[in-house]
C-alpha cells in the first residue's frame, strides 16, 4: 500500500503568542530538541511515505531552514521526497481559494507521486498514529475517507476548538461538529484514495469552496462513506501557550515520554553537533528533560531545557521551559516561565509566572 502525505499548515492559526510572532506554529520548538512538525514528518517516515507536500502560507522561513531538503527524515530523494509549497503566486487562471488553492496549484505533485492513498495531516495534534495500520483499516472498511479520532475522558481547554465525531454502530461517521459534550476528538488526520481526493478537490473548486476538510468531508456534499479510526496512543493538542506549557511538562511523566518516544517509531529532527550535557559541581537536577550542550551548575526542577542552555551557579529553574542557548545567570530564578531562544536572564533576576498562565519571553531578549 503506497502512501503519499500532505501536511497542511494553511489554516493553522499562529496562536502561541510570542512563540509564533516570527514562526509558524509548526516550527515551535518542543520537547527539548524537536519542532512540532518533526512529529508529523517522523510518523510519515515510519510508514515509509516517500512523497510529502507541506502547504505553507505565512512565516515559513524558519521551517525552510529547519527542513531543508528533508535529509533528517530521509526525504531528500531523487524522485519524490519533501516539497515545501508556498502558494504559487500570480496564476491568473487560478480561481481556487483557501487550502484548495494549494491543492489545485500542486495537482502535478499528486499526479507524479506513485502513492495511491493520501494521508492528510496538520501539525497541531501530536500523535504516533501508525499510517500503515490506518491504511489497512481504511481498505478493510471499504471507506471513501477514514478520519482519525481520539477518545478523551477528561476535557482540557485546548480540546475546545477541536471537531468531534459521531460514530454509528458500524464504525462510520454520522456527523462532524463542534458539540462540546462529545468525547471523540477529530485529530486532523484523514486518509483517502488519491484519485478520489483529486476528484473531490476539483468538485470543491468548481463549487467555489475554500477548505477541503470542511467542504468535502464535514459537509460531505457527495455522500462519501466516512469511516472513523480510533487512535489510542499518545495525543496532545498544541493550540495555545497554556496547552504548549502543559503538554511540555507532561512529558516528565515517564509513561508519556515513553509513548511519544517509543523506539519503534523514532522521532527525527535536524542534526546539531552539541557535546553531551555537563553537570557541574553544585548541579541539582530533578524531574527534568535536558537536551545536549547544556551546562548546569544550578538547580533545575520539573523543567525542560533545550540545547545549549546555561544554568549558572545558584540559579534556579522551576517548572519552566527554557529554549535553545538561553542563559540563566548566577542567582537568577525562573518559575512557570517559557523562555524562547537566546534569552539572557541576568544575575539575580527573578521571573515567576502562574502555572496556568506561564510567562513567555520573546526570543533574543535580555532581562
Amino acid at each position, binding site marked *: 500500500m503506497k502512501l503519499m502525505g500532505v501536511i497542511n499548515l494553511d489554516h493553522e492559526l499562529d496562536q502561541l503568542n510570542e512563540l509564533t510572532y516570527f514562526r509558524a506554529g509548526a516550527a515551535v520548538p518542543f520537547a527539548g530538541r524537536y519542532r512540532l512538525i518533526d512529529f508529523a514528518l517522523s510518523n510519515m517516515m515510519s510508514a515509509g511515505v516517500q512523497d510529502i507536500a507541506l502547504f505553507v502560507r505565512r512565516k515559513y522561513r524558519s521551517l525552510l531552514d529547519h527542513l531543508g531538503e528533508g535529509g533528517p527524515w530521509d526525504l531528500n530523494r531523487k524522485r519524490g521526497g519533501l516539497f515545501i509549497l508556498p502558494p504559487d503566486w500570480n496564476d491568473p487562471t487560478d480561481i481556487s481559494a483557501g487550502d484548495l488553492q494549494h491543492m489545485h496549484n500542486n495537482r502535478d505533485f499528486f499526479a507524479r507521486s506513485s502513492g495511491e492513498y493520501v494521508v492528510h495531516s496538520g501539525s497541531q495534534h501530536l500523535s504516533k498514529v501508525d499510517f500503515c495500520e490506518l491504511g489497512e483499516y481504511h481498505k478493510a472498511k471499504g471507506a471513501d475517507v477514514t478520519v482519525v479520532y481520539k477518545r478523551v475522558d477528561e476535557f482540557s481547554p485546548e480540546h475546545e476548538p477541536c471537531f468531534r465525531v459521531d460514530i454509528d454502530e458500524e464504525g462510520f461517521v454520522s456527523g462532524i461538529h463542534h458539540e462540546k459534550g462529545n468525547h471523540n476528538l477529530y485529530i486532523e488526520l484523514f486518509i483517502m484514495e488519491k484519485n478520489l481526493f483529486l476528484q473531490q478537490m476539483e468538485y470543491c473548486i468548481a463549487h467555489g469552496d475554500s477548505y477541503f476538510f470542511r467542504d468535502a468531508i464535514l459537509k460531505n456534499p457527495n455522500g462519501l462513506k466516512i469511516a472513523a479510526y480510533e487512535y489510542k496512543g499518545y495525543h496532545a493538542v498544541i493550540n495555545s501557550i497554556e496547552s504548549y506549557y502543559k503538554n511540555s511538562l507532561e512529558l*516528565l511523566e515517564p509513561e508519556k*515520554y515513553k509513548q511519544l518516544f517509543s523506539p519503534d517509531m523514532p522521532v527525527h529532527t535536524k542534526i*546539531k553537533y552539541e*557535546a553531551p550535557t*555537563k553537570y557541574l559541581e553544585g*548541579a541539582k537536577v530533578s524531574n527534568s528533560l535536558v537536551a545536549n550542550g547544556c551546562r548546569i551548575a544550578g538547580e533545575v526542577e520539573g523543567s525542560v531545557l533545550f540545547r545549549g542552555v546555561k544554568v549558572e551557579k545558584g540559579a534556579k529553574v522551576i517548572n519552566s521551559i527554557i529554549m535553545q542557548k538561553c542563559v540563566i545567570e548566577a542567582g537568577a530564578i525562573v518559575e512557570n516561565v517559557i523562555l524562547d531562544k537566546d534569552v539572557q536572564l541576568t544575575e539575580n533576576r527573578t521571573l515567576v509566572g502562574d502555572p496556568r498562565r506561564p510567562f513567555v519571553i520573546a526570543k533574543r531578549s535580555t532581562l
Partner: protein
Amino acid sequence: MKKKEMIAMLLAGGQGKRLKGLTKSLAKPAVYFGGTYRIIDFPLSNCTNSGIDTVGVLTQYEPLVLHSYIGVGSDWDMDRKSGGVFVLPPHEREDGSSWYRGTADAISRNLKFIDQYDPEHLLVLSGDHVYKMDYNKLLDYHKEKGADCTISVINVTLEEASSFGMINTHEDLKIYEFDEKPKHPKSTLASMGVYIFKWDLLRKYLVEDIDKPDGESDHDFGKDIVPKMLADGLSLYAYPFEGYWRDVGTIPSLWEANMDLLKDEPELDLNDPNWRIYTRNPNEPAQYVAPQAKVHQCMVNEGCTVYGEVDRSVLFYGVEVGEGSVISESVIMPEVKIGKNVRIHRAIVDQGKVIPDGTVIGADREDDSEILLINGDSPF
C-alpha cells in the same frame, strides 16, 4: 581533478590490542570517547575545521564499523564535490600483493589515490589520539620554515618519554634525530604522529622503500622514512603544539581522558562553536532525570534516563540507570542498561551491556586504582 594544496591520509589501521575487549570487533579509532564521540571524530573534525576537504582513511582490520560509520563523510561535512573522505582498505593489485605492512606502506599502496589530487603537501595523521588542532597553522609553519617534513611535537615528562617516539632538535627546532621509545631520552618533545611532508619528496622515499624486502625495512614512518630523510640531510622541523593531546590507547588512559572532561573548565572544550567536533548523531530524545535522581559532575548524553545517582562519570547515549543504583568515576558506553541497586565504581562498561539488579562492580574494593573493564566476556 583540481590540484589541492594539501590532502590528509589518516592511519586508522590499528587493532589497539592494549584496549583489550573494547576493540574485539572495532578498529581502535572507532572506540568511543567523551559521551558521544568516537576517537576518529577528532582528526576528521580537525580536518574539516582546518578546511582540508580530502582525507584518505587507511584501514586494515575489520573496517566494516569504521566504513559504515564514516559513510560518505556527510557528518564531517566532507561529502564535497571535489574531495571527500575515502576509506581505503588494502586491495588486490596486479602483482597480487597483500596487506599493509606498515604505516609508510599503507601510504605507498595508495599513491594513485594521492596522485589524483596532485597535492603539494601531504598531511599524515594517526587515528588514535584525542586533540583539537588547526592543521593550517602547522602548514603555515611548515612553509615558513621551508621544511621538507614537519613533525608536530608535544612536551612530555622525562618519565613518559620512553614510551613515545622522541624528537631531538637543535635550538631552532630543526630535527637531528628521531629516537623511538628511548631508554635514555635526550629531550621531552614527543612526536604526535602528525606529519606534513612535501609530497613530491615523500613520494620518492616511499617508492624507494616499497621495494625493500621486509627484513630491510618495516615500511614505517618513524622507523624507516624519517630516519632515512634525516640521514640524507633533508630539512625536518619540529612544530611545538600547545594544547590537550592524549593517546587513549590503554584502558587507564582512555578512562583518564574521559575523566578530564568532567572538570569545570576542561582543557578539551567540546562545545566551541568555532571548532565543532562532529560525530554521527544517534538521534535520541532529550535525557530524562527523574525526581529522585542525583547527577553531579557528569557528562550525560541524550537518550539517557537516570533514576539513580551518578557521580563523576560519563554516560553515552541511551544509558539507563535504575533506581537506587550508584555509579561513580565510571565511563558507561552507549545503550548500557543498568538495573536497580547496582553499584559501579571506577569501571568502563562496554556498549550494550545489561547489568542486572543488585550487581556490584568495583565498589567494595580496598584498592580501587585499577580501572575495571566490563564487556561481553564479563560474567553477567
